[in-house]
């Protein structure tokens, strides 16, 4: 039993150590200005533009469900017009960035791990190295930067579409008075809620790309290794996002309280 625990602890510490080394290489690469703009733009397109559909659908239906459920509860206490305010604050602070990040982790995290993992098992990463190109400069840094840039934009899209769809459901299906609904939303949603959402999405972008790249670069050999790396990239980034979200909520809540 002790041996198993020791092995597990050793494995976790070793993974954390390797991720730290990768993070160090990323910082060095950024400081040395090794980013190629063409690669970065391509990755923004790949991670950001191509994820729009999944993020928009998620945002829209989350907004609609949240609006309907909030209305059902608030209607009992005659607070129908506060529905959109609750939806807006929830989407900005929590659901927008977290659900966007989880959807992008499924789509992009898996794709990054699979692509880099396949390059590893087919010696393409060794070929990069023999062509005097550091894999971190070429494969990792553009993806990390692109994810940092794309996630806040995607989260904002998701929040906007979520609030809009919730408004449509509230006004056109549930019959809530639109003027008060909109006015209450503006009254209770503050700039800081939007900033919290953007900061969270920015951090989750880095988590998704870092774990995806790490799993790809260290994947086992063969199809099985690539498959496992892909699965682990999605699972680990999703769990990390959810855990990080809790701590970010606490820290940012405190900071907002202090301001």
């Amino acid at each position, binding site marked *: 039993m002790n041996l198993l625990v020791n092995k597990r602890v050793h494995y976790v510490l070793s993974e954390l150590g390797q991720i730290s080394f990768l993070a160090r*290489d990323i910082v060095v690469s950024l400081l040395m200005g090794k980013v190629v703009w063409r690669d970065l733009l391509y990755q923004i397109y790949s991670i950001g533009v191509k994820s729009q559909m999944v993020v928009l659908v998620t945002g829209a239906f989350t907004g609609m469900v949240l609006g309907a459920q909030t209305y059902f509860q608030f209607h009992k206490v005659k607070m129908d017009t506060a529905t959109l305010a609750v939806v807006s604050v929830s989407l900005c602070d929590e659901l927008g960035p977290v659900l966007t990040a989880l959807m992008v982790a499924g789509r992009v995290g898996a794709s990054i791990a699979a692509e880099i993992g396949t*390059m590893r098992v*087919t*010696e*393409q990463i*060794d*070929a990069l190295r*023999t*062509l005097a190109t550091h894999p971190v400069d070429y494969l990792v840094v553009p993806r990390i930067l692109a994810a940092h840039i794309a996630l806040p934009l995607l989260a904002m899209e998701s929040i906007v579409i979520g609030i809009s769809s919730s408004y449509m459901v509230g006004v056109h299906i549930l019959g809530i008075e639109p003027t008060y609904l909109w006015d209450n939303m503006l009254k209770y949603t503050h700039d800081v809620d939007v900033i919290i959402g953007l900061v969270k999405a920015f951090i989750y972008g880095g988590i998704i790309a870092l774990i995806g790249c790490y799993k790809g670069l260290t994947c086992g050999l063969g199809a099985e290794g690539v498959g496992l790396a892909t699965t682990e990239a999605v699972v680990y980034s999703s769990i990390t996002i959810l855990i990080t979200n809790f701590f970010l909520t606490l820290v940012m809540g405190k900071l907002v309280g202090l301001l």
Partner: protein
Amino acid sequence: MIEVRHLQKSFGAHKILDDVSFRIENGESVVIIGRSGGGKSVLLKHLVGLLCPDSGEVLIDGENIRPMSERQLLRVRRKFGMVFQGAALFDSMTVAENVAFALRRDNILTEGEISSRVCAALEMVDLPGTQNKKPAELSGGMRKRVGLARAIIYEPQIVLYDEPTTGLDPIVSDSIDKLMMRVHGHLKVTTVVVTHDMRTARRVGQRVMMLHNKKIYASGAPEGFFESRDPIVRQFVDGVADEKEILF
């Protein structure tokens, strides 16, 4: 000049190379032969710093690359071109993008200059007009040729070939052999070929080294090497399996 001193490498408990030492002069063409799984490719990867030895030294032009970081190694790797066993072409790119990769990363030449260098490299490997094809559309032999064009486009001093004729039919193998000799002759590069194809070894090598039992077991000019009476060399050159191995 490549010099390997007392190189040792293990993967886990499995020792692959044990006290391997040799020296390859500038412009020389050396073939390393040995049995499958004997550590030939591992040895080749040590020369370019893709693997780090457990002990011993690898010197490139007198510079020990063992203590170098990955970033420091990039400078040394500029001297190398490497052709991989499976070609290792970037499958998301076209042939032209693959071949031009190193030049584009350098960001020194104009697009026009890069394009003409790509054409020249593809002509050298007898693949003109294939610029827009994807690696998936190419045969095994063509992929190896594109891999070679990618390796020589920036005019390295040393070209490494990892099993260049494995999996190819005899006629394509023959054309790859001729291509390696042409590149060696035209570009005056140091050539290191890892293979277990005896015909390639005879034709391409000015010197043949045999890796056996984790060490360089025999070394010499092809004429003398292939006439050797040493039973282990003879067995490998003639391709005779042990009785025990026949059972498997």
